[in-house]
């Protein structure tokens, strides 16, 4: 296994056409450094799009539950356990997160 520094530009391209999870380190550190509430999401249930800031977030719960402002289905969940943040985005087709231009 090839080790790659987080944020490094090198990734270990394999013949199978994929790279290992280290390739996520750079993008993810950037995601969590920005205000994701400005990201645009698409609901997997009804297809509507809008900024995360417009979702309905239920926070008096064991985790944060963000629901679609149109159809009410769960788009995103975030749970803080002892040593991890669990993110479930199975209710969102995509998240478009504004970042600086390259």
């Amino acid at each position: 296994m090839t080790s790659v520094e987080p944020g490094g530009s090198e990734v270990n391209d394999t013949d199978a056409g994929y790279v290992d999870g280290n390739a996520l380190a750079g993008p993810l550190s950037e995601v969590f450094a920005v205000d994701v509430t400005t990201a645009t999401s698409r609901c997997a249930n009804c297809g509507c799009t809008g900024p995360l800031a417009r979702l309905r977030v239920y926070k008096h719960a064991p985790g944060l539950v963000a629901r679609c402002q149109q159809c009410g289905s769960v788009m995103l969940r975030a749970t803080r356990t002892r040593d991890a943040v669990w993110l479930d985005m199975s209710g969102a087709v995509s998240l478009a997160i504004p970042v600086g231009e390259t």
Partner: protein
Amino acid sequence: MAFISRGFHGRRPSAGTKLPPGQYETTGFPVLSAGPTPRIRKDDWQLSVTTETGKRHVWDWAGLMALPADSPTVDLHCVTKWSKFGTQWQGVSLDVLLADVETSAEHVLVTSYGGYTTNVPLADLVDGKAWIAYGYEGGDLAPEHGGPARLLVPHLYLWKSAKWVSGIELRQSDVPGFWETAGYHNYGDPWREQRYQGD
């Protein structure tokens, strides 16, 4: 410090032993919810028990009321760390509901109006350990606390006591529910502090 002041004021000397690790006592009844509160009219309410073969048993509100009721007094333990002692409920034991249900399943997925789910081993729902509760402290169970009826399985963390219960699915295989797929423990025993996966 809290332990000393509790003893000093002579309040609830037994509270320490009733409190699972990491919990604190509250006298309020916090409302936790992962979504909008469903408003289910008793006329429209149904509870189904579905077996692993697909056989479905259904009770409407009158059917539930016709069953013998219990009045359990139990302590509640929420994974968000509050515990509430001596709550009084009225409801039907799962032993009564499952009496005529033939099954060899070991797992249950509990479903609710509004889409919530949670998984519990069948063994934890029988032998006087769980109820379909519709009364609280002498009155109807309020919608924000799960009315008209919720599951009550007080020996596990309260997220297992599904509010607005609508279905009991008996299954051969275990399947994680809403919080169990989001980092919370599959079983949730407060006395072993099974809050999160890996605990």
